[in-house]
């Protein structure tokens, strides 16, 4: 298959189908509506099922049902709708059900606007719903990477029996780039879902899927099991891109689309002889703490750039533990930081100005 030019939202849909996901439940919301429309058109063509739910609350619960029945399943939304899915995501985590949930984030809080934003970082990386849980979060920076990470998201979901978040923003969802689909994507056939509730067919005892445990001791055991699983995910599934960090005086930490803009600013700075590197977390949870911690020992300063008022920067500071100054530059409300703005922040680092 050659290269095709597609919108980010549509790439997510096609990537999910390539990853063996034939079930999609969703509700329209800008700027991810093209994904819903794409699934409405494409899934029936490949023998799958698309259903427009009456709300995001019901969409995530339809996902809970399909996941209980052992199928690869996905839902998607944008920030306000993603908030509504939080209850369901907590239940998926508690019941240990695999599913992929997409957030094509937009400006908030509240109804906010429909422009790109990264202000849902706290919500997606810190659990988001009630209870002690985490969801792996993957944040692609370009459309080709969406394909790889969508497939990864389904694999992680099945392997660890956990909901996984694919986090993009309005820019990623709306833009077009050439992409190439790999015919050999893993489609989940090798995951034995012997826990799924599909009807016993007289074979063994009835199975139960639940997040309820009235017995405190047993619920704590369940929590220990979840936490052990999260440690395993931290060990195995941390993903990060590192560029020009070895000989760098300064490092920018940025993810998703902002990392691309930061990269352009870094190139400009390097042309001017300023040694700047880039650390791009690809998994936002688990967060690439180690590389950031190690790097912070060798650089003069770290700059975090986000389309938020400063969310990931908290994780960066936790990783750095004071080993180097950490400054922050952010734009909110759907405004995208420009190459020049980031470049100016890099210059400030040289002058020892940190904010």
């Amino acid at each position, binding site marked *: 298959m050659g290269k095709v030019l597609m919108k980010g939202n549509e790439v997510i849909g096609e990537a999910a189908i390539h990853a063996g996901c034939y079930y999609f439940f969703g509700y329209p919301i*800008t700027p991810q509506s093209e994904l819903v429309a794409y699934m409405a058109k494409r899934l029936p063509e490949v023998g799958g099922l698309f259903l427009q739910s009456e709300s995001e609350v019901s969409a995530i619960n339809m996902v809970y049902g399909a996941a209980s029945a052992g199928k690869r399943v996905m839902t998607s939304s944008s920030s306000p709708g993603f908030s509504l899915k939080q209850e369901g995501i907590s239940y998926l985590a508690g019941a240990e059900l695999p599913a992929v949930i997409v957030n094509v984030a937009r400006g908030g809080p509240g109804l906010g606007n429909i422009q790109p934003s990264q202000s849902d970082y706290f919500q997606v990386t810190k659990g988001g719903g009630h209870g002690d849980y985490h969801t792996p979060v993957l944040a692609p920076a370009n459309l080709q990477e969406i394909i790889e990470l969508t497939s990864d998201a389904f694999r992680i979901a099945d392997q660890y029996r956990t909901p996984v978040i694919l986090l993009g923003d309005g820019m990623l969802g709306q833009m077009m780039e050439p992409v190439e689909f790999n015919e050999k994507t893993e489609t989940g056939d090798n995951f034995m879902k012997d826990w799924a509730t599909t009807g016993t067919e007289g074979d063994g005892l009835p199975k139960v899927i639940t997040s309820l445990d009235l017995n405190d001791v047993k619920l704590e055991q369940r929590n220990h099991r979840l936490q052990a699983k999260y440690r395993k995910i931290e060990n195995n599934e941390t993903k990060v891109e590192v560029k020009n960090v070895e000989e760098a005086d300064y490092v920018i930490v940025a993810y998703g689309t902002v990392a691309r803009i930061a990269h352009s600013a870094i190139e400009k700075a390097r042309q001017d002889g300023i040694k700047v590197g880039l650390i791009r977390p690809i998994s936002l949870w688990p967060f690439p703490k180690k590389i950031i911690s190690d790097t912070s020992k060798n650089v003069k300063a770290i700059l975090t750039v986000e389309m938020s008022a400063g969310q990931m920067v908290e994780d960066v500071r936790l990783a750095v533990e004071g080993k180097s100054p950490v400054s922050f530059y952010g734009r909110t409300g759907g405004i995208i930081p420009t190459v020049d703005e980031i470049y100016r922040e890099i210059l400030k680092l040289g002058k020892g100005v940190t904010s």
Partner: protein
Amino acid sequence: MKTAFERTNGLKDVDTHYCPGCTHGIIHRLVGETLAEMGALERTVGVASVGCSVLSYDYFNCDMTQAAHGRAPAVATGVKRVLPDDRLVFTYQGDGDLASIGMGEIVHSAARSENITVIFVNNAIYGMTGGQMAPTTLMGQKTATSPLGRSSAAQGLPIRVSEMLATLDGTTYIERVSTHDVAHVMKAKKAIRKAFDTQEKNKGFSMVEILSTCPTNWGLTPEESLQWVKDEMIPYYPLGIYKDLREER
């Protein structure tokens, strides 16, 4: 010279963002005029929903609060219950907002006979988000999320909201009207007046369902859209009064 037509004080003197041929603007005017004629603008609080009418808070010339998608009747309940009885509270909601994500809120507000007035604009589609299927989308109607046309097997059947809410004991006044020609626009205004009067007299839940156009997402011209309301929508959504307990209550 005689003045034949004037702006209503019920709306602010601003341009709206509605597409050409969309009847949201007419409906705004009817609501604004009614409140102005009742002398109620200064004691009215409107609740804007999420849909094409989300910016109606910029248009209605009274206090307005904006609710999350589908939750306007709950927000209106909160506003109404804490303010003095002479305050009028209305919601202005599309069919996606009211009958899809907000079905729970509208049903329970009606069941509680909340003394509010609901202006329900049914255009058989999601306008704001670019033409996806609504609960009121007609059989066979093509939308971005029913690309082959709505079928009962895949998407189920359209909901007749007025008929359904009329079955609830809590509702007092429910009428379905249309805006496809001048005579029907005049009738729609009368219905809106009756609904607000119901609230004014403390008689409980009132709703006017107004059939409306969406030329942009229907892919029709403004004129064809009016015809479509008449030929396609009204047969499925018959006009008329579905509940009137104003005398009994």
